[in-house]
């Protein structure tokens, strides 16, 4: 999608130098490092020198690379990533729909669906682990069950599938009427999709959605996914029996679901 918040200035070189310094100063015990954007593959070959640098300085650290995957439609680009020599990398790649028109509409880029799909195949061919990310919004949520079927039939090799609640900030606010939907309004489609993929043996999770807006069947798939620096809980969450297990809310979201409420009674599982 986009960097949050959107940024039009060219800060590539400055940030690259800054990031190298950050890597150099990080402790060797750092469990995980995230590379995100914008779109990190826009760095071109510089992305590989960055990753090689991490590999050299922090060999134990897992790299989580968030990308739209389109650059990997070029198999030589995927092979270059392989040549960085790190097996300890997970690529988080969004797929917005099983329907190319919807996907391209959301990315606002014609042909992006085809490139992302080809990128996913090339990454699998090179042996990379991929986390498929489905961002839940008004446009895509109507086809979630079909999307699950599409993923199983076409991308059964992905390591993880994550359905992700939307953060209400940046372009989401600007496009409110088009993309915003209360999670309550897609909870049944989400349940169908998650349970279907789970039964096929895929590793499925739900990110960024509180237990109170999910059907109870999905509680076991919900993970604490929100980065600590922008994570908060509502006051009434203190009364909720599931607060400890719950991802809570985006402090950055300027709109929340109508369904937020403390869950007081837990039925026996």
């Amino acid at each position, binding site marked *: 999608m986009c960097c949050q918040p959107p940024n039009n200035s060219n800060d590539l070189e400055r940030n690259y130098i800054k990031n190298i310094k950050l890597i150099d100063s990080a402790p060797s015990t750092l469990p995980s490092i995230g590379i995100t954007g914008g779109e990190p593959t826009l760095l071109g070959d510089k992305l590989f020198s960055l990753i090689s640098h991490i590999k050299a300085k922090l060999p134990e650290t897992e790299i989580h690379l968030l990308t739209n995957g389109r650059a990997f439609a070029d198999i030589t680009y995927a092979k270059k990533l392989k040549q960085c020599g790190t097996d300890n990398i997970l690529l988080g790649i969004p797929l917005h729909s099983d329907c190319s028109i919807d996907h391209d509409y959301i990315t606002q880029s014609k042909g992006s669906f085809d490139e992302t799909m080809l990128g996913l195949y090339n990454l699998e061919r090179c042996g990379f682990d991929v986390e498929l990310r489905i961002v839940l919004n008004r446009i895509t949520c109507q086809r979630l069950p079909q999307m699950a079927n599409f993923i*199983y*039939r*076409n991308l*059964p090799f992905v390591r993880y599938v994550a359905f992700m609640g939307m953060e209400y900030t940046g372009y989401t606010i600007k496009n409110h009427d088009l993309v915003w939907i209360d999670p309550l309004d897609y909870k049944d489609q989400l349940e169908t999709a998650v349970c279907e993929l789970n*039964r*096929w*043996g895929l590793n499925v999770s739900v990110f960024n959605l509180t237990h109170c807006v999910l059907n109870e069947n999905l509680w076991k798939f919900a993970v604490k996914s929100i980065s600590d620096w922008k994570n908060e809980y509502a006051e009434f969450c203190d009364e909720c029996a599931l607060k400890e297990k719950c991802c809570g809310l985006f402090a950055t979201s300027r709109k929340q679901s109508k369904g937020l409420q403390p869950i007081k009674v837990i039925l026996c599982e």
Partner: protein
Amino acid sequence: MSKEDLFRSIDHMYMSPAPHLTMEFQGGEPTLVPELIKEGILYSESKREQTGKSVTYVICTNSVNIPDHLLDFCSNYNVVFSTSLDGPEWLHNTNRGKSDSYQKVIAGIEKVRDAIGEYKVSALMTTSELSLDHPKEIIDAYRANKFNSIFIRSLNPYGLAKDNEDWPRYFDRFVEFYKIALDYIIEINKSGELFVEELTTMILKKILTPFPIGFVDLQSPSGIVNGVIVYNYDGYVYASDESRMLAENGDYKFRLGKITDNYESIFYGRRVQEVSRVWATEYIAGCSECAYLSICGADPVRNYSTQGDEYGFRPSSTLCKKNMSIINHIFHLLDTRREELMPIFQRWITGVE
């Protein structure tokens, strides 16, 4: 089979492009020559290590007299045993025409389980005309003997079974038998016990998943030559198990060459070229326009043995009628009982409880 022919066959096997191989010892009764089995496995293992392929060994046996030393040997390699179990004692013994076959088979199964592991032995059922009236009893006999799956499969009109008089009637009854058996198995699964019907699982896998199945009878291009090849004790190579049965009756139509021939002249030889013209559902009449084209398979050997030519004639084909009826039934279940059955079917396909 001579040792030379055995080793030569294994050489051929490793020339196959497939990364995963299955080497199946059939008879007669292969456990009557245990030393030959051992030599075959050892020779294959030496080649396996050189090539990096994976190999499963299957010993098809009546389980009556498996020597202890063969079991000891097999426990060191990836060997599974395949045996015959037709159902409850009275039915099995009637089918086999013996009074003590059942006891011996069950004892043999237990012996293999004790020696090399619980899941190292599987059983195949022969559905005789007598069996057709007893689907539940057969399934219960499998459960009682600690099997958690069954393969409901019909007789093939080959070899000895060819004497059966009324095949169209047999297949009609078989389809009814299959439906009753499947319904009963579904009820078993609904009660919480995992019990798999293999034929349904393979067809469901073709309908619902992107993955291929290894079942020779439901492939296009056909499973013969592409998925299976038979090296026979007579020194010749045959297109399939069924081709070998025809040869036993004096018909060498699907003899592809001698074991001593080179790989190319067998696998790319004139006879294989001929059969390849009729071995895909995509280009034979009655299949090419069928909705089940991608689910079903082409079987030139079966066409030849039942209809007199390899191309076959679908309107009067018992194979076509049987497969269509079974696939229809599975779609009917998916259509009318989807919510109820999908969790069970998905468990069968994935093997995850």
